[in-house]
């Protein structure tokens, strides 16, 4: 049985200028110990998906219109606040994109780091602090026993992201949600953080949902990938299969627009136009207006995910019909 099963999740934002369908009917599952990559551009709904699971969507204006997210027998979207508190922050943890703004600048690292332990486990402050120091050492902070008493501004960006990771993992969660954890960091520091997440995942045998827009990061880290566009999953599959033979035109276009895969000197492949306005109802396939293969059948109905081979599914009617 999967660790987490999300079924038909819809998170809409009811604003003065209309209803934004940020996440519009997505379903996926993740097994214990597995790494799932969620790829998409800004506004594709990848972060809102995870915020919905963590109960971080501001309501109002946000509203979870439908769906269930069953984590080990408990529906995270419909359980009581008490049940949710026992899971969030303990069995499911999250790290955020910007380590500069997600730590409280007024509190010492020690206070923030051991807070989840004090809340979720019957430990004394002293034991919690000892575990905090051990965790900081595990994520590669030198001189942890002293540095745990520093304030966030005394740490560099990469070090702060290590603190965030330590904070998320201190309760030994079964599922870690990482929302673009390396986007704000330099490539050399990114490489360190990715190695760290891989190592800790093996040690703790946790499942990881890794949100990113960088296909390079996904290819080295994730077992499975799902590509999101305009609030829906357009393609999902095993990482190797998806990179070797992408079927959906959006995935193909994304892959072709990365500079490193291009011949130097040639113009880069570009996707014409802009992502759709999510406050307007979308007729048919959301990618059709930018798609080079679009035809009348693409606008007829919203394409559903269908498997083209076991474990590899995509939502393109023309590819499903074998036309492209």
């Amino acid at each position, binding site marked *: 049985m999967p660790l987490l099963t999300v079924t038909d999740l819809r998170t809409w934002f009811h604003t003065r200028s209309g209803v934004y369908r940020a996440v519009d009917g997505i379903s996926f599952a993740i097994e214990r110990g597995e790494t799932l990559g969620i790829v998409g551009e800004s506004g594709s709904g990848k972060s809102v998906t995870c915020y919905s699971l963590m109960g971080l969507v501001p309501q109002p204006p946000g509203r979870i219109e439908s769906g269930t997210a069953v984590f080990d027998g408990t529906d995270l979207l419909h359980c009581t606040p008490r049940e949710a508190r026992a899971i969030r922050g303990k069995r499911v943890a999250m790290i955020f994109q910007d380590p500069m703004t997600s730590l409280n600048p007024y509190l010492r690292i020690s206070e923030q780091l051991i807070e989840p332990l004090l809340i979720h486990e019957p430990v004394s402050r002293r034991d919690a602090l000892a575990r905090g120091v051990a965790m900081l050492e595990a994520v590669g902070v030198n001189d942890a026993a002293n540095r745990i008493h520093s304030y966030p501004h005394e740490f560099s960006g990469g070090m702060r992201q290590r603190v965030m990771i330590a904070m998320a993992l201190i309760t030994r969660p079964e599922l870690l949600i990482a929302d673009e954890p390396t986007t704000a960091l330099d*490539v050399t520091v990114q490489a360190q953080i990715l*190695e760290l997440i891989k190592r800790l995942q093996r040690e703790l045998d946790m499942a990881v949902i890794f949100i990113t827009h960088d296909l*390079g990061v996904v*290819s080295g880290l994730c077992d499975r990938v799902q590509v999101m566009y305009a609030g829906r999953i357009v393609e999902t599959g095993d990482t190797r299969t998806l990179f070797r033979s992408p079927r959906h035109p959006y995935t193909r276009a994304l892959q072709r627009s990365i500079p490193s895969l291009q011949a130097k000197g040639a113009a880069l492949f570009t*996707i014409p136009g802009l992502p759709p306005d999510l406050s307007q109802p979308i007729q048919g396939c959301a990618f059709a207006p930018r798609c080079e293969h679009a035809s009348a059948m693409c606008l007829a109905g919203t394409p559903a995910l269908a498997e083209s081979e076991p474990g590899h599914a995509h939502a393109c009617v023309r590819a499903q019909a074998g036309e492209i």
Partner: protein
Amino acid sequence: MPNPILELTDVKTHFPVLSGFVRRRQVGTVKAVDGVTLAVERGEVLGLVGESGCGKSTLARTIMQLVPTTAGTVALNGRNLSACSPAELMQARRDLQMVFQDPYASLNPRLTVHATLAEPLRVHRVCPPGQIDARVAELMRLVGLSPGFLRKYPHEFSGGQRQRIAIARALALEPKVIIADEPVSALDVSIQAQVLNLLSELCRRMHLALIFIAHDLSVVKHISDRVAVMYLGKIVELGPAVEVIERPRHPYTRALVSAIPTPNPEIERTRQRIVLAGDPPSPLNPPAGCAFHPRCPFAQDRCRAAAPPLAADGPVREVACVRRDEI
């Protein structure tokens, strides 16, 4: 190099670090740019890469004369900019324009696109007032936007469109050199490709020299003719883009290249990755000798003794590493 358009000779930009509330005393110096010698030819694209804090943005600001030069000369078309009077500098800046990283912050939200693009034309009186409208419309077409958008405000555009407006503003005075400071870092992959194509096409067509600052090596390799790698205020490697990135000589360039994740799972899972330990050192208190030695896997005693100069390595490349032939 014959007749470069922009020539930097041993440029240093140091910032004093002050302490004390009533009596300010200097307690140190940040050597943000520390001895950079570089020449850019007409029509050439030079990529400048390095981690945050290595001084690449300060170098850009020094070239623009937005911060005072501590030592050395910045010469544009043979004229030393740091010795210019303010009036001469204003004249010189017609040939030297900049595109910034964040298109959300670099455009004035209270000005329409028309006002943004017309301002440099008015300030420098490059065309008669009657022709400004036509010139502005031409600039919009040049960067692939419809002149119908001219009455709109920046907030009505997407990130990629705003960056096009910023590029149009930089092109308004027909400069000879453009400095682009991380122009695509804030954009999504598909939009990034559009802006990169536009920049390289404009450079080719208008014979512009472009200094392209980025931390993404794959983007730099794609767009640049030559690449300069910076570490802690100094250039550590310089040469043709493809050679430097495919066959890096300096250990820092090697680590940088190896840190880029490749979007190919077959290669990505099997290759050996050099993971550097630690963060870049503080420019306030740089290590003695080669600044990279505390993180370098090949460091020896002589690396700690003296800072290696940037020395020729073959006909077209330069590397600042004493052990370059041994590793």
